[in-house]
């Protein structure tokens, strides 16, 4: 593929200083801004609707901005359904999955890049092959298995099937491969074993890649839908995504879309914040996958 150094950012985010601000520049600005607003519109709508008074939410014609800002939708959502509990469940589920995936992937990627052992390549292709297995094929047997182990409707049930991540192994291995062999040799001369080399040198060097993968893993776990839907039964164990779905269907009758939008913002909030903070790493990480894939 293209000759890019894996350490360079695949998406160019540096600004190029140009001499003049041309008419084309303005046209492109307007075009992009328009497109951007249209694309981000649903989120803006949810955001503004969540702060509107119920009367304005149900009013016709529909408006964008709230005439009067109120928090009552958030209060209604928080009180009527255990959104606090949903939030906690999502945080525990996503947090533990992320931590598990990061650790497992670091270990496996290290093995596939720095360590040497028989069958290394074959095993790597097998791991990679697991990415081709569609989820609908695995979720029914996994459901039966997890239930038989008594982990249904629990944190373990939400987390354990996802602790291994082939994608994480792939992504981190890409970066580990760029670490010069001389470093490893030098550390061996200093008497450090593989374990120390991994945690004292490799991991600190890979902070950016590991960070990007962590965000990616967290977002995927946070936004999971089908698995939490089937593995959780009681309200206490539902995650935010499932919670918002049932919240919406319960309220349909009364057209209480204000609280539904508030609930959506709650479900959306942490992911959005993570995105705004770490947008650059996340985008670079995804872009790299596309180029190497």
């Amino acid at each position, binding site marked *: 593929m293209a000759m890019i150094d894996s350490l360079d950012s695949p998406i*160019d*985010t540096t600004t190029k200083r140009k001499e003049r*601000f041309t008419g084309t520049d303005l046209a492109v600005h307007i075009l992009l801004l328009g497109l951007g607003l249209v694309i981000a519109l649903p989120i803006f709508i949810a955001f503004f609707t969540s702060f509107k008074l119920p009367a304005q939410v149900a009013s016709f014609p529909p408006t964008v901005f709230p005439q009067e800002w109120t928090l009552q939708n958030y209060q209604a959502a928080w009180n009527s359904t255990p959104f606090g509990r949903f939030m906690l469940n999502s945080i525990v589920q996503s947090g533990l999955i992320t931590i598990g995936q990061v650790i497992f992937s670091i270990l496996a990627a290290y093995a596939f890049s720095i360590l040497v052992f028989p069958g290394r390549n074959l095993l790597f292709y097998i791991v990679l092959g697991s990415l081709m*297995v569609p989820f609908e094929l695995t979720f029914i047997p996994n459901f039966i298995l997890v239930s038989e182990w008594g982990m249904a409707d629990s944190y373990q049930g939400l987390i354990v099937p996802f602790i291994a991540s082939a994608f994480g192994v792939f992504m981190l291995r890409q970066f580990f491969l760029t670490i010069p062999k001389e470093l490893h040799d030098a550390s061996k001369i200093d008497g450090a074993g593989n374990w120390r080399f991994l945690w004292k040198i490799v991991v600190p060097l890979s902070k950016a890649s590991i960070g990007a993968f962590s965000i990616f893993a967290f977002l995927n776990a946070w936004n999971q839908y089908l698995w939490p839907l089937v593995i959780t039964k009681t309200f206490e164990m539902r995650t935010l995504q499932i919670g918002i779905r049932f919240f919406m269907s319960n309220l349909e009758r009364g057209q209480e879309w204000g609280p539904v939008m508030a609930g959506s913002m709650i479900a959306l909030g942490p992911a959005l914040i993570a995105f705004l903070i770490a947008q650059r790493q996340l985008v670079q990480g995804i872009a790299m996958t596309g180029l190497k894939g």
Partner: protein
Amino acid sequence: MPMQISSINLILFSLHMTQFRNKISSALEGYLYLAPTLIGLSIFVFWPIYKSFTLSLNRIAPFGNQMRYVGLETYANLMTDADYWNSVRVSLLFVLGTVPVGIILAVLLAVALAYPLNNLSWLHRTLIFVPIVISSAVTGVLFRWIYHPVVGYLNYFMVQVGLFDRMQDAPNWLATKDWALIAVIMAVVWRQLGFNVIIALAGVQNIDQSYYEAAQIDGANLWHRIRHITLPLLTPTLFFLLLINIIYSFQAFGEIDVLTSGGPGRATQTMVYDIYYDAFVGTPMRGLASAKAYLLALMVVIMSYIQFATAQKQVHYQ
């Protein structure tokens, strides 16, 4: 004399043993690092492949543990099941609706985003990439609100621009058989846009500038440059996007569950939704669901394989 020979032998022997032990221990070490991931994948990805198949060969009592072996009878029955073929049709329509549109939109946006601007590109990118963090459930909820027949933004917008006279004339998106699938398609395309644009943008920016410079010297205009440089050199990216989007579209679930739950009247009952329905809604029929899941997986794998096979001819590398 014999003492010296045997002591040399002894040294050589212990040296070989140490090397052998080191080899084993370094191999073991490698496997040890791999173990967590391999075990996890074996239990939750590889084993289910086998288990799914064995499940599909049985009829399973809904809540009990009784299984009756029926062999391939389930598969045979499916071949003549009208509802099953409906779900296949819906899935194919769905994929056809989401993938080309999504990729084309993404490439157009990427080309626009690749235009060098001095400032505000972070704003443009943030706005355009943002759907990537939205979950399928939230997407469903947002679009349900937008599609609302009485106070929904979409219909109101269409009335305002004159496409329809009154709100009632505009489609009732989620309640009409003809429009429901399109409504779901739009929601899914929207959601995938963030991811697709990022990949497309990386691909576009990866094209060596010198090609464009040479073309400009030769007098090629913008359209020409796009058609003869950008698109051909974008084919690896397009290939990747095609693959990922097809796989994803076959598995899309959250939006459908929130927007339509497979309705109205099975109009949006994709294969995945059908499988979920069989296994978890009403009286669970896990054997049947597993058979359908197997067929779906086969379909996806075959499609991916065809794609890989034809890629050699279509994909150009720099």
